[in-house]
């Protein structure tokens, strides 16, 4: 998919809660072997949403940072698209709350998207289309989650909270990066799911990994082939990070080397933020990229599908960097919590709801 009129990222903004829990802390609670997660999954600690934070507040923080970097009036936005698999409400859009808080209502397209961990990159694709067609001037695409996992499940060692937002507009001198092309690879694959009445997702164990590799590798290969490019042409690549091992394997399979995925690789210090994962990885790359750098992005959403993007950093990226906190600023701002605090904040203590 190549936009008819060139589009770009006018501003980007990330947000991570300040709280962290160490994987070691979780392993101690469940009596599991730490190495299984630190070495097996390559995750040391994960970001935990505070007691007054949820997907909506994370999306708002990220959107406000993106607007700062875009240097536009929020009234210039024509669409607010929030991608998540953990919206606070089953029925009541996150998108309109974000739109209200950032001051874009009422003449605004506001919507929520859900496709497991790739809802955020879908939001980017939708904004690309709206901008490229001339229907809107700017659109904001957000990927954010307070990632869900059942207590004691393998998922719990990595699921984290965070998100990032991108303001998409036509490609001009204000653009930090161009989005030259995108392609998607989607099949009906039941590797991970959550029914609406269930609090935590279920997954197919080993099969989930098989589904991940199949979709990410095929989406990446497809876009690289369409562009007639080689892995060596990219300075940066970001592959969805459910853990630290999977993206490394994908990189190797596609012909990339570790250095190319290093800057966008965040999972070992913040965990897997589901819909926020790729947006945060891309934000970290934009925090560091030089004008002219080629960036490959491949997201993954269970169910299942991958969105791939070819992005090129533009000259304006240098001046925008300091206008909002970087991902590294947020990674460095941290305070550790213990499991009891984490359990309380994540509403895992039975009886809390009854008390209300």
């Amino acid at each position, binding site marked *: 998919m190549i936009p008819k009129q060139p589009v770009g990222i006018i501003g980007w903004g990330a947000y991570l809660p300040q709280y962290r829990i160490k994987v070691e802390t979780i392993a101690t609670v469940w009596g599991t*072997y730490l*190495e*299984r997660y630190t070495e097996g999954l390559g995750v040391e600690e994960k970001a935990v949403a505070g007691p007054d934070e949820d997907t909506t507040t994370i999306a708002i923080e990220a959107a406000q940072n993106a607007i700062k970097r875009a240097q536009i009036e929020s009234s210039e936005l024509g669409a607010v698209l929030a991608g998540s698999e953990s919206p606070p409400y089953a029925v009541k859009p996150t998108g309109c709350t974000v739109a209200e808080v950032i001051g874009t209502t009422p003449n605004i397209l506001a919507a929520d998207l859900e496709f497991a961990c790739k809802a955020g990159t879908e939001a980017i694709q939708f904004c690309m289309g709206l901008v490229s067609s001339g229907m809107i001037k700017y659109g904001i695409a957000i990927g954010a989650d307070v990632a869900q996992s059942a207590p004691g499940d393998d998922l719990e060692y990595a699921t984290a909270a965070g998100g990032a937002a991108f303001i998409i507009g036509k490609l001009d001198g204000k653009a930090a990066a161009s989005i030259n092309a995108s392609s998607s690879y989607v099949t009906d694959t039941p590797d991970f799911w959550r029914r609406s009445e269930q609090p935590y997702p*279920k*997954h*197919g*164990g*080993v*099969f989930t990994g*098989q589904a991940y590799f199949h979709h990410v590798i095929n989406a990446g290969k497809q876009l690289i082939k369409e562009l007639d490019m080689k892995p060596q042409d990219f300075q940066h690549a970001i592959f969805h990070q459910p853990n630290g091992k999977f993206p490394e394997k994908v990189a190797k399979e596609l012909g990339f080397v570790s250095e190319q995925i290093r800057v966008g690789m965040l999972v070992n210090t913040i965990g897997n933020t589901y819909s926020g994962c790729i947006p945060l990885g891309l934000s970290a790359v934009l925090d560091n990229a030089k004008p002219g750098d080629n960036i490959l992005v491949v997201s993954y959403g269970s169910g299942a599908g991958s969105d791939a993007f070819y992005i090129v950093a533009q000259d304006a990226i240098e001046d925008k960097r300091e206008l909002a906190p970087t991902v590294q600023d947020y990674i460095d701002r941290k305070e550790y919590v213990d499991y009891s605090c984490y359990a309380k904040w994540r509403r895992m203590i039975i009886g809390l709801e009854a008390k209300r």
Partner: protein
Amino acid sequence: MRKVAIIGVGMTKVGHLFSESLRSLFSKAVRSALEDAGNPKIDALYVGNMSAGQFNNQENIAALLSDFAGLNGIPATRIEEGCASGAGAIYNGFKAVASGSHDFVLVGGVEKMMDTSTCDATSIVSTVTDQEYEAFLGLSLVGINAMVMRLYMNTFDVGREPFAKFSVQMHDNASKNPYAQFPFKTSMDKAMNSNPVAEPIHLMDCAPLGDGAAALILCPEEYAKKFTSSPVEIIGAGHGMDTFIFHTRDDFLSLKAIRDSARDAYRMAGITPGKVDLMEIHDSFSITAFLTIEDLGFVEKGATGQAIDEGLISLDGPLPVNPSGGLKARGHPIGATGVYQMAEVVLQLRGQAGARQVPGAETGLTNNISGFGASSYVHILRG
């Protein structure tokens, strides 16, 4: 009783076969076996399967599998006997041919386990133990084996090393088996330092979860030469039982079901253990393998570790055990395992086992047990 020969074998590779279904797996094994046997017309089907109901939400699978394997219209029966379902199917197929009820019988085994999570699969597997007296109290199959391994280690003053050595040998063998789930070698260091599951059992002491199907074609020996130049005869068969609940056993370090099934199989075959050239045994855990080698009459109680050290079970040793890699490394698709064991011995006795061939093997033994030895089958084959 008529003499019974095996004239065809078929197997799928064992593994995480996400692109296969219960029926497609079974059909592949059946087609391979039929082709191997020269496509005889099949009169009856016996299929071993432990828990399609729980793994695949599918019961009534004898009718389903016979239909989708192209065998519709013949009597088809499913045998369920926990982990020994595969050998149970063989035993019933053997009796059907030996008695004259049927001439050409297809015996298969299939288990499609990987469509469930590891956690769910582990719960399903634990249903082979007593749900009221064992599972109810949190005692899993690995828990029982862990207690027995601890008792064995204390009673005979052995460490974990001999058990790890057994697992390393299984991986060595599997590295030569194209049907194996884990066709690679491992080291003592990895075997000793793998994660504990239930002390003293570590991950490398355990058989994995996996999908797979295997099939055999049985017929009266008098017809076998028309189909193959190398029929393999089933010369002995025994089926033994023990108390279902582990804690009611008289002896925790000896499995009566194995002793009884071996006694009957040796008697029918008219041989002693010394005549066996190789065997495929049920090493769901390395401790199970140790007890089995001893209860089949090959080694004194407590001496298996020393026998392994002296090279007894290696491929070029006096009694190669599990040339396929065993449950540990060939894999353990539960209801199919007994059939895989016999398919391996048939290939060995035909001299068709490739890099893992035991030279000059003429007599082979298979042992497939359920639960912690609640039941056991021993079959003896001659090439």
